[in-house]
């Protein structure tokens, strides 16, 4: 994207089958999540992020499908139809929302990079819970190919999942 595009606010062209990291941290294989509900892939294929920052950003252009009332998880649908669940930490539903500042509402359109919520990672750790965050493509069965780009440090500028139809 050139300087003039930036100056004139041209919309960034994103690959519709790419998912960017919703949080900064280390991207790891979903099998590293110590919870079989996520790790076995029954909720969809995915990756996980060991976050270093509590900011959760939109991983693509799309719509907030369901921000859980407790703020610990959010599902989104991309403009191209990817159904994604971001679940911040494990067992965090039991924290009843305390460590989560929700920034978006159900049905809201978001652009890649928009802040969806801010999690207080220290508060999650203090509650004795893991902060590892599964990022799951709930409709991964709609795609022929799934590639997770894991085993490295990532930010919202990095593609962590590449799908092929």
């Amino acid at each position, binding site marked *: 994207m050139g300087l003039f595009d930036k100056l004139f606010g041209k919309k960034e062209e994103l690959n519709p089958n790419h998912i960017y990291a919703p949080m900064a941290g280390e991207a790891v294989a979903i099998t590293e999540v110590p*919870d079989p*509900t*996520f790790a076995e892939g*029954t*909720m*969809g294929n995915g990756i996980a992020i060991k976050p270093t920052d509590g900011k959760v950003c939109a991983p693509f252009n799309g719509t907030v*499908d*369901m921000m*859980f*009332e*407790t703020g610990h*998880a959010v*599902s989104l*649908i991309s403009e191209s139809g990817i*159904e994604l*669940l971001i*679940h911040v930490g494990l067992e965090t*539903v*039991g924290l009843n929302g305390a460590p989560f500042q929700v920034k978006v509402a159900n049905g809201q359109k978001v652009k890649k990079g928009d802040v969806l919520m801010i999690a207080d990672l220290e508060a999650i750790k203090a509650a004795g819970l893991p902060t590892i965050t599964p990022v799951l493509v*709930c*409709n991964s069965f709609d795609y022929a190919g799934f590639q997770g780009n894991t085993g490295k440090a990532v930010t919202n500028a990095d593609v962590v999942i590449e799908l092929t139809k």
Partner: protein
Amino acid sequence: MKEFKHVIADPLGMHARPAGMLVKAAAGYASKITVAAPTGTADAKRLMALMRLAAKQGMELTITVEGADEEKAAAELQAFLAANL
């Protein structure tokens, strides 16, 4: 067609884990399985749809099972929900 009701006992409602487990259980049957809550209706084989119900403790779900294995599916899903949600 088979139909049964289940009142959610889990204090946390239908959050990601029980929804995921239900999808896994439902995926094992050929029948079409629909979950109706006061908040909407969802295909039990689709995680996002189930989570969108935002079904809470005390809400009554009506589960409809329709297909070749509906007898077995309804009986087993009823037991599954009683144990997990």
